[in-house]
């Protein structure tokens, strides 16, 4: 009897590992593909082999990417846009989320609902009017335009995340600080904000990802090649008649590194910071 349950337990464990390993493999397969392509020498780009590392693996594509193409320009543009969006997102969301979490005021409910409603906008609903407005204002091809669009699209979700997290922090904490003579603002900055670190991290991460990885809006607003961000640049390797897979692979790997690094480094905060209770309202 005892050996039977033990054996059952063993098979169960083996099956669990087998299934998890299979899905883990599925999850990394495309990434391994890109990496593999990025290491292929020019004459093997269209190879039909499925080797783990290609024969005559070389970093030639990476070198070409940085020396022969405008990759550094795209990288600089994307970094500038992303940093601006992240900073704006974190400041605005942390303040407004706090306001919604702690105070009662006229229009609060309407405000929260309208934020939720923006999540249902199809991308084109803001992009098209924005595009026409920018044409009319002559602001096509400007960073200001794109930074504003990105910040605003990420903001509603970030405000909700922050609000949901503040809701879990007891109000007695700032009340105590207020009794000690702190102003509202000091109590918020010194007591609450540090405690909301997980949600701040998530807000920063989502703002970062939404700007770093956005293609559709950028493709319409940034048409001057000097202003291109990474997504448009990478797409351009693919767009022409013959795809430059080697360069595309190398560029993808370089683009992925910061975002995957950040994401995995912060993934332990994801579960605590992304209190989906926040969406419950």
């Amino acid at each position, binding site marked *: 009897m005892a050996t039977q349950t033990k054996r059952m337990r063993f098979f169960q464990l083996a099956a669990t590992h087998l299934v998890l390993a299979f899905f883990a493999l599925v999850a990394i397969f495309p990434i391994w593909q890109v990496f593999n392509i990025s290491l292929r020498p020019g004459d093997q780009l269209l190879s039909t082999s499925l080797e783990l590392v290609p024969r005559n693996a070389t970093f030639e594509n990476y070198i070409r990417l940085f020396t022969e193409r405008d990759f550094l320009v795209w990288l600089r543009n994307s970094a500038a846009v992303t940093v601006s969006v992240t900073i704006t997102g974190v400041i605005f969301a942390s303040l407004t989320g706090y306001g919604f979490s702690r105070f009662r005021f006229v229009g609060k409910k309407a405000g929260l609902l309208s934020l939720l409603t923006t999540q249902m*906008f199809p991308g084109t609903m803001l992009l*098209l009017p924005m595009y*026409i407005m920018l044409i009319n204002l002559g602001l096509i091809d400007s960073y200001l335009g794109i930074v*504003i669009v990105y910040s605003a699209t990420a903001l509603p979700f970030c405000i909700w995340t922050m609000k949901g997290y503040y809701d879990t922090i007891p109000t007695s904490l700032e009340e105590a600080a207020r009794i000690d003579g702190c102003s509202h603002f000091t109590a918020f900055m010194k007591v609450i904000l540090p405690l909301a670190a997980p949600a701040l991290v998530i807000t920063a991460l989502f703002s970062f990802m939404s700007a770093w990885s956005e293609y559709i809006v950028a493709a319409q607003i940034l048409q001057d090649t000097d202003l291109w961000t990474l997504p448009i640049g990478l797409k351009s390797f693919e767009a022409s008649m013959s795809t430059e897979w080697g360069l595309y692979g190398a560029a993808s790997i370089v683009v992925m590194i910061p975002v995957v690094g950040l994401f*995995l480094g912060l993934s332990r905060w994801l579960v605590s910071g992304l209190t989906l209770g926040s*969406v419950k309202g």
Partner: protein
Amino acid sequence: MNTDRTKQFIGFLVIPSFVLLAAVVFYPFLYNVALAFGNMNLNKIRDWQFIGFRQFIKIFTEPSQPDFYAVFGKTIIWTVVNVAFHVILGVFLALLLNQKIKGKAIYRTLLILPWAIPQYIVALTWRGMFNYEYGSINLILTKFLGMPAVEWLRSPTEAFIACIITNVWLGFPFMMVVALGALQSIPHELYEAAEIDGASWWHKLRTITLPLIRPVMIPAITLGIVWTFNNLNIVWLVSNGGEPSDRTHILVSFVYKAAFNFYSFSYAAALSLVIFLLLLTFSMVFMKQSKATEGAY
């Protein structure tokens, strides 16, 4: 009652965000509504007029290329299939990860990866993998599984399936993380008590696990449905703008094409509005329904 000082503080907290949102979200939204009732296109950017409901009538009654109802049907299939896979896979993997097993952290890290990769890279990479001759999907099919190669990107049904596969791959980690968070908050005592009563694995799943993760999963699923319905990146980039011959569109990619390839601005604006109203109605009904049934457990 708020004191004046408090009022100032609230203003300081809330007003900047809403000024920003008013300028770049609410104003464009109203502008979009106005456009939907007009006749703007590339030749009439400045001198367009209001023409009432004509764009809406055109959407619902005039034949379009591709057909609106066909695209709408495809969008429903796209959303339902994707979200179903996301939720089933996500909850399933979360259940597996929520045990005491070796290498849990490694599995979790690897399984989150698809969420971390920028969507456009996911899309372009999978497009490459679906290539008939050199793509790894067909290589695996033919070399390891002895199956015939599939013309993934050149026939409408297969191209649409290719888009769905890509999107399933990138979407399950979100549901997995959400489900994992919910599972961790279920008290152990419940399972222990059920075990004493001799409850089977399936019984525990149905009576403890699923009802208790439900309140967290419902909002996540609502968001998932809205995001999937509106996901332009994957369809647009995997099928390269609706190829072959505009047969793989979902509603948002159809609007995007109308707006930025055909410059039918007002038509696109009207269609955006239709999509928005559909989603708004759906979310309200869905959330209300699931709240109403919550008491059943």
